[in-house]
């Protein structure tokens, strides 16, 4: 095979029939993926495998004009999912909800109107009581409409992996209910052409009453039940160990995950992968310190490979324990040095910012006669004073490894914001000195579309004592462990207000 050959061929020699099968993966040059003739003209027949096969072949996965590579396929499915799939599901639930709502709203009206349309002459006149019921139906329908709008037509917070069980249950219940009422109506009223109009109106009123009660049930199941705190969950970030505790009610695992993600965005400091590099390099140094050689050669055991690995790791652990490791010294001095450097940079930064802020002040009324060239709006003011503090700020951010979290544009925007709202230099610096919650930073750090829920129990099952699940994001994962809040038994003790009597006591008193 020529070394300059850019096709990869795998030849299988079939002894019986001298057939040569070739599999070719093409490069940019070649265009057709299926071209057996290409293989056959370069084949070496009937001999054993080329000994140099491993060294001289090149494996190239690329794309040609007519074929799709694996990467493209993955990218297209991802785009599809992102744009069409999820939206499709969201719109589907919306549409179903709207259909159900319209059905629910129009059913009582239909019950009232159909007798007038179908058998107007047979119908009894609607008396005063009946007309009173019209008012009642009207207002109850209005209340129902507002209640449904308030509870169900809120902007969705998230798209969860599985269907929300209670919501599905309720919509099925409503559907069944309305269908059964329609059935009864169709059979007993439409077919029999019942003349008693008041009875029909009362029937419609009872439907609306029952719908209001179902709505009450919906409020209790969807909103009220999860308010009472029942579990204390401990959320830990896997990369740097940030831990928070929250109290949650009785929720399904996916809803608990959603609540925790919303808390995450406001409570946890932003994830900064640059801070983890030090520990990774230390870990690498630990591993690189020892090399294990096996001088006995492969032994006569039935799985020598496994036994070898086992004994190797044991030997490494034992040797590492015995070795006098001085890496703790390095860590200590490095951290002390880093601390000092950060403090020095911080001092320079604070001084620079304070000095920069003294260069501008708000324009007073009497100074309005100044020429318009001198008057600046906040953005221009920020741009004017930014250069004097830019260097100090940049150096500080670099020392604390935060420079990729803040862009120049965002810093200037923040400066303009602080100037507009009369903030002091200390207030301006606060967002750079301590890492804030994730939402404070730019959109591409939010990673809101990339959470994966990993759980051993089904995600629609409820939280239980000892439930553990993971929320994986791109660089890190949140480990969540739930514990039940204990049942509190409180007892009462009555103190008579007259029993508060006191005597003087010397500093120390001994009884003899």
């Amino acid at each position, binding site marked *: 095979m020529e070394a300059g050959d850019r096709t990869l061929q795998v030849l299988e020699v079939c002894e019986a029939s001298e057939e040569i099968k070739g599999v070719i993966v093409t490069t940019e040059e070649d265009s057709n993926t299926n071209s057996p003739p290409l293989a056959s003209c370069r084949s070496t027949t009937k001999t054993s495998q080329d000994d140099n096969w491993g060294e001289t072949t090149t494996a190239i996965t690329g794309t040609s004009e007519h074929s799709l590579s694996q990467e493209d396929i993955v990218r297209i499915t991802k785009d599809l999912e992102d744009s069409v799939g999820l939206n499709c599901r969201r719109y589907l639930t919306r549409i179903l909800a709207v259909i159900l709502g319209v059905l629910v709203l129009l059913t009582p009206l239909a019950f009232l109107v159909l007798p007038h349309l179908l058998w107007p002459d047979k119908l009894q006149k609607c008396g005063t009581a009946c007309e009173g019921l019209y008012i009642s139906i009207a207002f109850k329908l209005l209340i129902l409409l507002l209640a449904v709008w308030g509870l169900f037509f809120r902007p969705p917070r998230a798209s969860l992996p599985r269907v929300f069980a209670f919501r599905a249950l309720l919509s099925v219940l409503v559907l069944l209910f309305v269908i059964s009422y329609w059935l009864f109506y169709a059979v007993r009223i439409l077919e029999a052409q019942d003349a008693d109009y008041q009875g029909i109106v009362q029937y419609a009123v009872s439907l609306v009453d029952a719908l209001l009660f179902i709505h009450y049930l919906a409020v209790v199941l969807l909103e009220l039940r999860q308010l009472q705190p029942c579990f204390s969950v401990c959320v830990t970030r896997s990369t740097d160990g940030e831990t928070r505790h929250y109290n949650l009610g009785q929720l399904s695992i996916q809803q608990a995950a959603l609540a925790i993600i919303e808390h995450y965005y406001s409570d946890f400091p932003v994830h900064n992968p640059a801070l983890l590099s030090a520990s990774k390099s230390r870990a690498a140094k630990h591993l690189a310190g020892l090399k294990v050689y096996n001088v006995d050669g492969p032994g006569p055991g039935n799985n020598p490979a496994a036994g070898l690995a086992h004994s190797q790791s044991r030997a490494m652990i034992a040797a590492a324990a015995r070795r006098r490791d001085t890496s703790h010294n390095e860590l200590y001095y490095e951290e002390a040095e880093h601390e000092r450097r950060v403090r020095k940079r911080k001092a320079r930064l604070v001084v620079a910012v304070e000095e920069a802020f003294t260069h501008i002040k708000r324009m007073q009324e009497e100074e309005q006669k100044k020429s318009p060239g001198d008057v600046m709006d906040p953005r221009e003011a920020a741009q004017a004073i930014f250069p004097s503090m830019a260097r100090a700020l940049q150096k500080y951010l670099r020392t604390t490894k935060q420079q990729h979290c803040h862009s120049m544009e965002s810093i200037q925007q923040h400066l303009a914001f602080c100037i507009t709202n009369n903030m002091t230099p200390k207030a301006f610096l606060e967002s750079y000195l301590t890492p804030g919650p994730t939402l404070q930073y730019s959109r591409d750090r939010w990673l809101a579309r990339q959470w994966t829920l990993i759980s051993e129990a089904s995600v629609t099952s409820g939280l239980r004592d000892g439930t553990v699940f993971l929320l994986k994001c791109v660089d890190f994962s949140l480990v969540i462990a739930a514990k039940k809040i204990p049942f509190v038994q409180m007892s009462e003790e009555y103190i008579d207000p007259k029993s508060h009597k006191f005597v*003087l*006591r*010397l*500093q*120390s*008193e*001994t*009884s*003899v």
Partner: protein
Amino acid sequence: MSFVPGQPVTAVVERIEIQKLSQGPNLVLGFCIGGGIDQDPGQNPFSDDKADKGIYVTRVSPGGPADVAGLKIGDKIMQVNGWDMTVVTHDQARKKLTKKNEHVVRLLVTRKTLEEAVKQSMSRPGPS
């Protein structure tokens, strides 16, 4: 009972003899003491002079040996079995009172009413 530095302390004292009562493994006297040179004299409610660091009786259990012998609350103990109690620490005072091999303690105590009684009897005209 006021203490003038450099001058010997003079006081009118009463001699009280208390028999210790054995309660189980302990011998009790039935009263509580407070004060001492290592304590805060300002917190003593029974002393006139708030700089007085002597040992005072703060509680007497009713019906106990001290009560029977006539010890009163607020008494200042000057001597216990010959040992001085005016310049001792609280713990030293406790030790002198609770020696296990002694069954009787002889106290010299002073109180304000004693001085007044002496003054009154001195100011009364003598028996004619």
